[in-house]
Every structure is written in structure tokens, then in C-alpha cells.
């Protein structure tokens, strides 16, 4: 039976954990469009399996396991040649991705600070590439730099951001 207390608890957890589930699915799928689709499927599956949900048990591990199943199904459908990760790699990475996704909210907070600490020029590169989704070629063209120079810059900035986020998450961090 879907008793209302359990249902409410389920919906709350599902809602609150959307970003974490998105982080999990996106990490394994690597494409925002497909990841959105897979998360939709995951939400629907979780909803259909509401009967199996016990509100005093941790929600995330259960949700991750169902998300992983959906990721696998998506990889099967797409065909291995189109996706980076194959089922074997998903299994290999899944644990680490779960741990990463669990702390995604903190990553977001830290990242906001880290973006601030970038030089404006670098921040703009990240904006163009990841917020606006401009192709590398376009960015290079506008900046009047070569594609490989842009690539080197973005790779360096992403390394910098990753380090900064790690430092904030683990060092004397945000308060």
C-alpha cells in the first residue's frame, strides 16, 4: 500500500536528491541530454517501485542502484560504439561516482567560490564553454586564438577548479 506518510517521505527524498541523482547519472553517461532522459526514467522507475521504499532506510543507495540499472539500459540501447563507458566500466566507476554524487551539493557551493577566485578572463572561458555551451571552435574564433591554445587553457582551468574544490571540501572550508 502506498500510505500517505511513506509517500510524502518518498517524494521529499526524491525531490531533495534530484541534484545528486543527476550528478550520478551525468557522470556515467557524459551527456546532459541523455542524462536528463535517464534521470527521468529513473524517477519514474523509483516512483513505480514506491512499494519497495521504506522510509527509515537510506534513500540514496536504493536510488543509486536503480539509477545504475537505467544507465546500463541506456548504454545497451545506444550501442557501445557511441558511449564512452561500457557496462564493465560503469561497474568499475560506480562506487566512486556514488561517493562523488553524495557530496555534490557541497561541490556546488565550493565551485561557486572557486569560480570567483578565477581571473575574469578564465572565468569567461568557463562561462562560454560550460554555461553557454559554445563549441570550442567558436570560442577560439572569437578570442582570436587557436583551438589548441583554448584547449590547453580550459584544461588548465579545469585542473585548477578541481584542485580548488578539493581544497575547499577537505581543507579549512566554507562555513
Amino acid at each position, binding site marked *: 500500500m502506498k500510505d500517505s506518510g511513506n509517500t510524502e517521505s518518498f517524494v521529499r527524498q526524491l525531490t531533495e536528491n534530484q541534484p545528486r541523482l543527476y550528478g550520478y547519472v551525468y557522470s556515467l553517461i557524459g551527456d546532459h541530454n541523455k542524462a536528463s532522459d535517464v534521470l*527521468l526514467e529513473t524517477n519514474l522507475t523509483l516512483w513505480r517501485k514506491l512499494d519497495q521504499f521504506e522510509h527509515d532506510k537510506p534513500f540514496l543507495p536504493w536510488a543509486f542502484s536503480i539509477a545504475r540499472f537505467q544507465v546500463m539500459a541506456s548504454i545497451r540501447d545506444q550501442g557501445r560504439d557511441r558511449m564512452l*563507458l561500457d557496462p564493465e566500466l560503469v561497474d568499475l566507476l560506480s562506487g*566512486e561516482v556514488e561517493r562523488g554524487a553524495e557530496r555534490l551539493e557541497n561541490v556546488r557551493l565550493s565551485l561557486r567560490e572557486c569560480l570567483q577566485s578565477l581571473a*575574469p578572463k578564465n*572565468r569567461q572561458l568557463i562561462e562560454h564553454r560550460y*554555461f553557454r555551451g559554445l563549441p570550442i571552435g567558436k*570560442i577560439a574564433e572569437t578570442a582570436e586564438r587557436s583551438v589548441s591554445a583554448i584547449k590547453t587553457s580550459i*584544461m588548465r582551468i579545469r585542473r585548477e577548479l578541481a584542485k580548488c574544490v578539493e581544497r575547499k571540501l*577537505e581543507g579549512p572550508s566554507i*562555513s
Partner: protein
Amino acid sequence: MEEFESLFFDWESGSLDEDGLARLRQLLRSNEEARSYFVQQQMIGAALRLDFDAGLESLTPEASSGETLTTRTDSKDERTTVSATQQPSGPSIVRLWAVAAGMLICGLTARMVYLENSNARVVTESTVSQPETETPREATSDGIALLTRTVDIRWADGTRTPQTGDALTPGKLAIDEGYAQIEFFCGATVVVEGPAELDLKSSTLARVHRGKFRAQVPPAARGFSLEVDDMTVVDLGTEFGLDVSPGATNVQVFDGEVELRSNLHSKQLLTAGDAIERTNAGAIKTTSTTPDDFVDIAGLETRVGGERQARLLRWQTWSKRLRRDPRLIAYYSFDQSGVWQRKLLSSVEPADRELDGAIVGAARVDGRWQEKSALEFKRPGDRVRVNVPGEYGSLTFACWVKIDSLDRWYNSLFLTDAYNQGEPHWQILDTGQLFFSVRHKADSDKKNPTPTHQPVLSPVFWKPSMSGRWMHLATTYDAGSGLIRHYLDGEQLHEESIDPALVVNTTRIGAASIGNWSIPTRPDERFAIRNLNGSFDEFAIFSAALTADEIQEMYANGKP
């Protein structure tokens, strides 16, 4: 690793060929470092995307200069239009929230309201089918009127229940009993007496189904209209009454002129002293005005005054009892009379003058009731300094606060100086989320870093339409289990247990500030400046995690 990074970059940009893909897989399989890098970068990719969807990219102000790039691209190639330049690959995650919203429609309740707020974009069914037509996510209030006063109000079951001070959006309002004063943005003020039912249409128009209304329309708001069935009452700068009952509609003009428009009787002008009654059949007869039957603004003020006195008295009685609660660590009722002398007196009994706070900058203003004061914090320096000695375990923070806007990245409710071991920080993020954390340990070992504390965030509870409204906020921290609960107006917003490894058993406060941060741990402006833009009227800290019932009681007894 360099090879991996380069391949990863190409893969992400969609330019990696078959051989590259195979090589990337091989590296992922064989190299642990590569896997860590991969997961880390993918999380950052997800985080960027989520923030983009939440409309948070504006956090990087200079980024708007990106528009120059968009423009230049456009001028070079007309075909490079909006879809290519503005939206990153694909539909937004709004669709995901929409699914959960669908579940809401399946008949779920209450808490889901926060879903709507948890993302800056509004979730509607239409977003499922048209994710691409999402409109911009400015935090504008789409209100058309303000609810400025209520007396003994009881909203009809199953309809919206706005609070005094709320902006009202178009839609139905249904009152079972009591009075409401609605100020339309055009300048017209309407006093509604229940039972009443109306549809707010725009800042100049409402449709009335039943109830008694008295409208005061200053010249600037001329043209304000109320619709009843096929009849429209257009105000030409005046004061009029409208009584809509199942049998008949009564229009009375107390001052100035009103124009009646309807299909049957094209136009009719009523002037001061005129009154008509229209039956459902459409017959119109002249009657006389009875202005005393319609409560006007002044009359409502008298009633409001009576109700306000009663509420103030209830709060004062409750507050007097609270002062002796042995669990109180600090309590400021903001109820001192006479000259304040820049001191915020501690209300804990027996009195301890060491707990008095020092007011810096903040100005004294009217509180929840005009008979009592509050402190308004506006400028970056405004604060109340307190010093709370001792060591504690569990904690509860509670306050009545009015937020004008969330200007800072972190907006302080209560922050200890710096952020040392065992110290709590209670604040609101610019996203409108309540934030609580206790520092678990001092800076971690640089070689083997581990987290120093775990922040617990509520869903988004504040939005600009709540600006200027008094609300009750509370957060409880159980030092045994690490369970943290956030409350708004007596209702739980969120609960979360922090990682057992980060639970703090011994808490302490010491020197601290209400509404600001006195000793930031880092100099950069965005991080360090945390003054609240708003007012406080009552602030309490307890050495225990209060129960949900106790928080509810605090709200019920202090509600203005």
C-alpha cells in the same frame, strides 16, 4: 595523465574518434588516477550544469560580457541564432523537476510546495512538453496586489492562504470569514468582508463572485474595475461599495463617480449617493446607500488595532513565561521600553547583564506590532554584538525576522566570530536556503585533509515576494545524533543527519554577531561580507533541540 586529460577534453567536446574512445576506455580501466580525475571532472560538469539550470550563473558577474561574444557571432553568421548560442546542449533539468511535479498532481501534499521553490524556474505541466521555451529566470515577483491587512481571517479550505504583507498573484481568493485589505498595484484599495470569493485578474481588475467590497480609488488609480457576471463596475476616482449575494448585486457610490457597463444596459453613470440593486434576472432598481454596512479602511484599522492588541498581549504573556525556561542560553525579546542606549537587553531571567548585546549601526524601527520595537540592519556594518560564555551540547536557534532582500552570498542570522571548533553558524544563502553548520574540528591536516564540518541546507524557502514579511525561523541541532531540523513559521522545512564522523558533541558560542559576521576567516569580499538586509524582532538560543511542537508553539504565540 596528460594524454588522458587531452583525450577526456576531446571526448567532452565531441571530437574524439573511435581509436581515441578505445584508448580512453583502456586508460580508465587500467589507471586509478585517471578514474579519479574522470569522476571529479564529471561532478564539476554536473555542478556547473545544475547551477546553470538554477539560474546561478549570474554569480559570476563579469560573465555577462559574454554577450558581446554572442552578438559578434550573430553578426558574422545570421544562421547562428539563439539556439546555438544561448542554450548549452539540450533541454534543461527542469524536465526532471516536472516529473516530480507530476507526482504532486497525483495527489500528494504539503511539503512538495518547496519543489517549486527549489528551482528558480517555475514548474508547470507545460514545461514537460516545451522545455525549450523556458523563459528567463529573473527573480521578479509577478504580483498584482498586496495583502496589507487581515482581521480574524479564515481562508476557505483548499485555497491559498496568503499572509499579511504577501504579494498576491492573479488567481482566486476565497474567504470564509473575516476581513482582508487588498492594495492593488494600480493604487486602488479594497476592503473585503467574508464570506467572499473573487478572482484577481490584474493590477486594475478583479472578478467578484460573492462578498462585500468597499473600494477606495484615488485619482491615480482611476479606471480600476470590478466585474460581476456580465456587469463591470468601473471606478472614475471615488469610493464605492459592492455587495454580491446569490440573489442580487448591490452597488453604492459613497463619493465621486462610478460607471456601470453591461451587455444589457450599455452604460450607466452613478454619482455620490446613488445606489442600485440588480437581480439575477437583470432587473435594476434604485435603492439608498448604506455606507455603514461596508467596512472602510479606517474601520478596519480599528478592528486591526483590537486584534493586534490581543496578539501582542498573547505574545507578551508567553514571552514572560519563556524567560524562565532553564534551557535558554540567550534571549532577546526586543521589548525594552524607554531609551535603548545602544544596548539590546538580555531577557533571560534571572537577569545576567553580561548577556546584554551591543547595538552597532542597526536602527530601531517598529516591530511585529507597532507598540514594540525591532532592529533594522541595512548597512554592511550593522550588527548586534553578543558574548555567550559556556559549553553546551544540543542547540536551538529561533528568531522573528523580516528580510528585505538577500544581497550577500551568505546572509547572517547568527555567526560566531571566526569559525572555531564547536561553533555554530546560522545564515541564509542568496538562493533563499537556510544554512546551519557546526565546526567539527580546527583546520585539518594539510597532508591528509578531511572535512571540518557539514553544512545542512534547507530547500529554498525565501523568494522576493516574501520581502518585508515577518517570519519565524528556527533550527534545531541534536548533539547526540547529529540530526538538524530547519523550520519556517512553525513548520518543518528540512531534516538531515550529518555524517557521524562530523557530529559535534560539545558546542560553544563566545563572541558572536546577530545579523553580521565580525571576524571573517578569509578576506575576499564575497565570502566575508555577510550583513543581513532586514530586521530582527526576537532572538533566542536554547541549550537543547526543541521539539516540533515547541517550535510550533513559539510561532503560534508570536505570530503578528
